[in-house]
């Protein structure tokens, strides 16, 4: 019982500490929602050349994001010659695997990709708290029960998923032109998974 209580205390301290550890200053929120507009145009096909490194194995291919409707996204990864590696649908809070290569059909891997891509495409998120950090506004929100921080200077340039007060996944958006991020990097801290996306059309 005593162990359980101390664990709870530790967990409590750890959970609350990310914003403090990084000197975020609480500010009164001006916005009730934060927007990620990088995949928000239904008329556009977002097509990226992708390089994925998993435990020192490199994969390359074509990564496609399409907004089908409000809160409805399709994400497909194919090889350069066009064979589908995976094909996922995100509709509101539901997730569907339309297709996945047999070798990749592992619940653990699918769950990681589901969490990453949900954060990547989610367009409108409720703000729980707002902070400032030098010239950056930081918004705290929750996606699939995980705490996320959205960093916005002039544009949204970083999302961080946090667990137990530590960075777990960092999403970086760069070379932003006309609300399209030409370069995107998704890097995990606790597993060797790194996704690099470079816009090709």
């Amino acid at each position, binding site marked *: 019982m005593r162990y359980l209580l101390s664990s709870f205390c530790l967990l409590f301290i750890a959970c609350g500490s990310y914003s403090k550890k990084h000197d975020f200053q609480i500010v009164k929120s001006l916005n009730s929602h934060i927007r990620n507009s990088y995949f928000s145009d239904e008329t556009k*096909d977002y097509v990226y050349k992708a390089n994925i490194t998993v435990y020192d194995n490199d994969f390359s291919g074509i990564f496609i994001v399409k907004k*089908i409707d409000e809160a409805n996204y399709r994400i497909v990864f194919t090889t350069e*010659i066009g064979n*589908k590696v995976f094909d996922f649908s995100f509709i509101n809070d539901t997730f569907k695997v339309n297709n996945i290569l047999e070798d990749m059909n592992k619940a653990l891997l699918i769950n990681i990709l589901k969490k990453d891509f949900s954060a990547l495409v989610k367009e409108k998120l409720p703000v729980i708290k707002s902070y400032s950090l030098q010239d950056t506004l930081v918004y705290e929100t929750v996606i699939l029960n995980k705490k996320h921080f959205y960093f916005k200077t002039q544009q949204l340039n970083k999302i961080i998923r946090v667990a137990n007060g530590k960075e777990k996944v960092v999403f970086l958006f760069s070379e932003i032109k006309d609300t399209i991020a030409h370069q995107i990097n998704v890097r995990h801290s606790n597993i060797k998974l790194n996704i690099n996306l470079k816009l090709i*059309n």
Partner: protein
Amino acid sequence: MPKILYILFFIASAVNAQTKMDSSEAAKLKAKVKAHAGSLETLLSDFVQYKHLDFLSNDIVTTGKLAFKSPNTVKWEYTKPFKHTVLFKNETLFINDEGKKSNVDIGSNEMFKQLNTLIINSIKGDMFNENDFDISYFNNETNSEVYFSVKHEKILKYIKVFHIIFNKEGHVIELKMIEPSEDYTRIIFSNRSINIPLSDAIFTQ
């Protein structure tokens, strides 16, 4: 005549533009393609690839060069909009992705071996194997078109049918690989050079 009949009539005429070959025409085409495939030592060609996904507004277009050397060395080189090369040689898949090199030993992977054989055969057009495919032959204006419906269960998960268009000489001018979902990859070949000497340097990573 009600509108719907006009539409049906139009569809019927459109379908009729491609007619089924009779068995002697099919046998002639098969003999021609096999003779050409048998004498094919090298092949160099440009290609344009269209990846069609039903939910996209536009197909994804990539272009590049294909080089083949008998019996089983193939290089697909994508040049636009990115640089990526896949070389099948000596049961190994050599990949060069924008300068980053890697290779995969496919000798032990039955699926990869089958896919490699399929790719080589589809470039030559010689896939007339009734054990592996249900085959239907069509006349398509001045060209011929053959549908190779996959029988192999494992391959069927990824590609259900290959449509190959041959010109009058029996050379492959277009290859379409259709997935079970109806999404497809369509590759159109142009500027073809046949049996010209190709240096080994072309077939390096």
